[in-house]
């Protein structure tokens, strides 16, 4: 019988995609940039980029712009 990790890898099409989904689903509130994702999943950036684009197309993942977070109001 195939192991769990093999099932999930082939169910989602690739190891990269399965790992991406895992990392995002374990912490849905977390937003990560490409460098961090590739470091955390130990996968090459090119693959990650490709899969991210596919997931973005499906609207499973959304983008958050970094400088949005910097616009914090400063209380005087």
């Amino acid at each position, binding site marked *: 019988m195939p192991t769990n990790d093999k099932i999930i890898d082939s169910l989602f099409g690739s190891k990269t995609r399965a790992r991406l989904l895992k990392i995002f689903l374990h912490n849905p509130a977390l*937003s990560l940039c*490409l460098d961090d994702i590739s470091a*955390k*999943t130990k996968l090459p950036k090119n693959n990650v980029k490709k899969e991210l684009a596919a997931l973005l197309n499906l609207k499973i993942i959304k*983008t958050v*712009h970094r400088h949005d977070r910097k616009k914090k109001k400063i209380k005087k």
Partner: protein
Amino acid sequence: MTAKKRKSKNKKKRPLHKGLPFDKTSRLVRPRNSVNYQFNTALPFFGELRNLVLKISPPSFPRLEKSIRKIGRLKLVAATGVFLNLNNSRIDLLLIGDDIDYKKLNNFIKNLEAEMGLELRYVIMGTDEFVYRYNMFDRFTRDILDSPHKKVINKIKGLAT
């Protein structure tokens, strides 16, 4: 003046006001408008997908055991927490043993984290310390071994499998 010195004198200095050199790998210097990615929680089947992925994601124990053996002389390895889909456990992995190669351990944990997509909470202890703690009914070790767990390796005498 030697040739080496002249060379260093002629080297152009980067003007300070132009800022630090752009480095993609550095965490401090990153383009300001780089994009972050996040899961779209507005998906109608978000909960279902999450359950599916989290439920089937733990790696198989035989494979885990195979790679864990290379770390050192491990006497006891117990997997709880995320490995058994328990939410309120103290740790995920308990490693008891001697002569542990910390480089290999670090590598192993990093790989496992990459595979599972989360940060693992693990404890590593010497055999003597563990036996001492277990015999004096230390709260921490007793808690782990009383709660549901799976012993991947167990070579300690007098401990139920």
